[in-house]
């Protein structure tokens, strides 16, 4: 027993906005909180744990103030876009030891309307390694592109195989009324789009949108009164990868550590997973993540994503909402991985529902894949 069975996911909400120049960031947090609490059938007064990320350095206090909350458990972990996946785990652990009973995780961002260059701006300054990197002009995207280049060199992965990921996500987005881009695309469309950072094209990249969402994690006792069936947190784990003194193998990513650990805790294997929500910042992220989680061997990701395997109706449907590549990406997408997995497990996904979905895996990747990044894996199940 992991102890995580003392908690479960009570409610989720994906903010429908993709473009919100008329809202503030905290308003998106608050509207998302309202949505998730309503989904859970709980009140804002029930909340005694607050978790968020992507805020200013002590922004969690300002967020608590904005929501007039007086929580007894707080967490503003920032390990990039995977933070919210990790925070579901943190919330469950806090509940398991009695630090709180109802934990609210919120996210809000105006990356698009604030014209923030999420992937192709310079990297922030101040950390010791920056002086050995920033002068050479790395961007977030470059760090993923260098992994893709190495993957193609070592394993013969092709641009067409990477493009297949983007094409599949767009096919899924077509069935999601909230998705930003819903018109089908082809492999040729991806290859014909401009190269932004070789070997990655524009359509190998996630979108930049506004958006937000919220997740409510609650104790077993509080889950008795919730509006929707609670979703179990079966296991989870986190990992970091960095330059490792100049010795890192770039095709080995954090998922290689967090994935097997999470599955071990949950008592499941890859064959038990009915669908995956994989952080798709770029097409290469999906390939590398599937390999490192163990769904296929290292180097076989290119072949794995073909033949409809990762599409709806396939062996392992991935990102049924259309992912960051087609639905939304406000900068830190982890929370949407959890939200869609919960909706799939509850059977609420209508035209994009995965049949008999009982166990889902979420894997968030945060940061710069080829420089330093985080991985957070979460296994969720019908409880």
């Amino acid at each position: 027993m992991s102890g995580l069975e003392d908690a479960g996911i009570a409610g989720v909400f994906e903010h429908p906005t993709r473009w919100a120049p008329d809202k503030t960031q905290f308003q998106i947090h608050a509207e998302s909180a309202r949505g998730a609490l309503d989904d859970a059938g709980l009140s804002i007064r029930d909340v005694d744990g607050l978790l968020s990320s992507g805020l200013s350095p002590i922004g969690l206090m300002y967020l608590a103030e904005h929501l007039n909350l007086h929580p007894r458990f707080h967490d503003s972990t920032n390990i990039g876009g995977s933070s919210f996946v990790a925070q579901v785990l943190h919330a469950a652990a806090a509940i398991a030891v009695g630090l709180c009973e109802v934990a609210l995780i919120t996210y809000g961002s105006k990356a698009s309307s604030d014209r923030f260059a999420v992937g192709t701006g310079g990297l922030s300054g101040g950390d010791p390694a920056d002086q050995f990197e920033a002068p050479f002009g790395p961007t977030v995207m470059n760090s993923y592109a260098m992994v893709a280049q190495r993957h193609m060199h070592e394993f013969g992965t092709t641009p067409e195989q990477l493009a297949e990921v983007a094409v599949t996500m767009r096919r899924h987005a077509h069935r999601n009324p909230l998705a930003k881009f819903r018109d089908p695309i082809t492999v040729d469309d991806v290859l014909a789009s401009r190269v932004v950072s070789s070997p990655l094209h524009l359509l190998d990249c996630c979108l930049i949108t506004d958006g937000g969402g919220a997740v409510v994690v609650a104790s077993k006792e509080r889950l008795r009164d919730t509006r929707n069936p609670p979703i179990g947190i079966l296991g989870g784990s986190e990992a970091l990868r960095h330059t490792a003194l100049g010795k890192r193998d770039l095709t080995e990513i954090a998922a290689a550590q967090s994935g097997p650990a999470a599955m071990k805790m949950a008592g499941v294997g890859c064959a038990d997973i009915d669908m995956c929500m994989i952080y798709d910042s770029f097409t290469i992220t999906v390939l590398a993540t599937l390999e490192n989680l163990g769904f296929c061997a290292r180097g076989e990701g290119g072949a794995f994503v073909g033949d409809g395997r990762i599409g709806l109706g396939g062996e392992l449907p991935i990102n049924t909402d259309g992912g960051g590549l087609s639905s939304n990406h406000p900068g830190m997408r982890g929370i949407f991985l959890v939200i869609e997995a919960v909706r799939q497990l509850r059977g609420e996904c209508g035209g994009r529902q995965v049949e008999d979905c009982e166990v889902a895996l979420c894997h968030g990747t945060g940061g710069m894949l080829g420089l330093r990044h985080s991985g957070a894996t979460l296994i969720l199940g019908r409880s």
Partner: protein
Amino acid sequence: MSNPSRPGGPLPRIDEESKGFWEACERGELYVQQCGDCELLRHYPRALCPDCLSSRITWKRCSGSGTVYTFTVVYQNQAPGFRGRVPYVLAYVELAEGLRMLTNIVGCAADSVRIGMAVEVHFEDVGHGVSLPMFAPLGSVADSKGA
């Protein structure tokens, strides 16, 4: 030798742990740190060996040669100093000493760079007493100090 001008680009924020590295670059020499006790090589430099936590630092001079471990040709970077510089090549070079270093490949057409390509260090003087260790195809560096 291409010498991309980089007005407004970020300069390294040199600190107490790193100044030995940058002072060597300014002399046209490439060094990596080595633990004075367990002999572990490390890049970037830092005051304590992260393996044995020893504070004894030695520096190992590198040959300056290496191979391209991976790279990307960058066509878009909105950051100051790079907007006007695209396309440029960002790469990890694997030094002959075995460590990988983030750098730029210069002195050749961006589309001619390949993984495994033999390269050698080329120090680019960017002013303010700073020379950046970039890499160029082996044999193309005439003057190691900002040709």
